[in-house]
């Protein structure tokens, strides 16, 4: 048994080209790791761009909505002011016409 153990643990030289193959394999593994890192970075960048796009869309939508509401309110106020101006001039005109008729009929009656 002692001999069997000694044979098993005996120092054995590696086959020819072993070191070169190990180095080659290690290089190949490193390249794959770099690829994975690059892919992860690209995915992260794309996600960031997507979030920025979403944020920009939200800002534009909110800003546009606020602008639209302000413009709509201004338009409604303007239309109401216009209606009131026309109504005021209408009442003033009607009253002037009525007064003119009264004055004329009064003078004719003299």
């Amino acid at each position, binding site marked *: 048994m002692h001999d069997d153990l000694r044979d098993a643990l005996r120092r054995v030289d590696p086959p020819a080209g072993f070191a070169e193959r190990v180095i080659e394999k290690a290089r190949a593994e490193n390249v794959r790791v770099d690829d994975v890192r690059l892919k992860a970075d690209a995915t992260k960048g794309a996600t960031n761009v997507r979030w920025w796009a979403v944020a920009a869309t939200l800002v534009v939508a909110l800003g546009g909505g606020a602008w639209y509401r302000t413009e709509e309110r201004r338009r409604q106020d*303007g239309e109401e002011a216009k209606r009131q101006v026309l109504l005021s001039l209408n*009442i003033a005109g009607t009253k002037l016409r009525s007064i003119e008729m009264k004055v004329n009929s009064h003078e004719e009656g003299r």
Partner: protein
Amino acid sequence: MKTMSTMTKRMTTVAVAVACAVLWPAGAFAQVFTIPDRIEKLSEKAKESTNITLDGALLKLASAFLNSNDKDQRAAKEIVGKLKSIHVRNFEFEKDNEYSDADLDPIRSQLKSPAWSRIVEQRERGEHTQIFVKIDKERVGGLVILSAERRELSIVIIDGEIDPKQISALGGNFGIPKDLPNPTATSKDSAE
């Protein structure tokens, strides 16, 4: 620190003085009409009421929305462009004596300044009608119509330059007669 504080106080005083000097003329010549509360409350009794108050900012906004391609609106736009304010109160009642002619006295008292002239005064069958104009540098700078009928009360106060030609031009457009009575002649004939 004390010097700074004194300087700040002086600068504030100067700024206030300059602001007063700049703003005083505008405030001195602009007349603010007050409609008595008693008149404003008539809307509670009225069958129909109109309450319009348009100041400079609203008049500008209205002017911007008046269509220059429309004949009537173009005429209104030309008039509105020179106005400072418009006040209209119109009440229609279901029965007589819902208000008193004396309710209008606070408005009449605001028209006692020399700038205002009464050009029409007519009392007939319980109705009292008055037209006042403000003469400003030989131009009509304001118009007030007070029409107290049995079941209708109308108050129209237009502050600002109104060219009589423009009023004539409005004839037919907004119900304003083209042949208004001659203000001077009417004043002599009708004023009390």
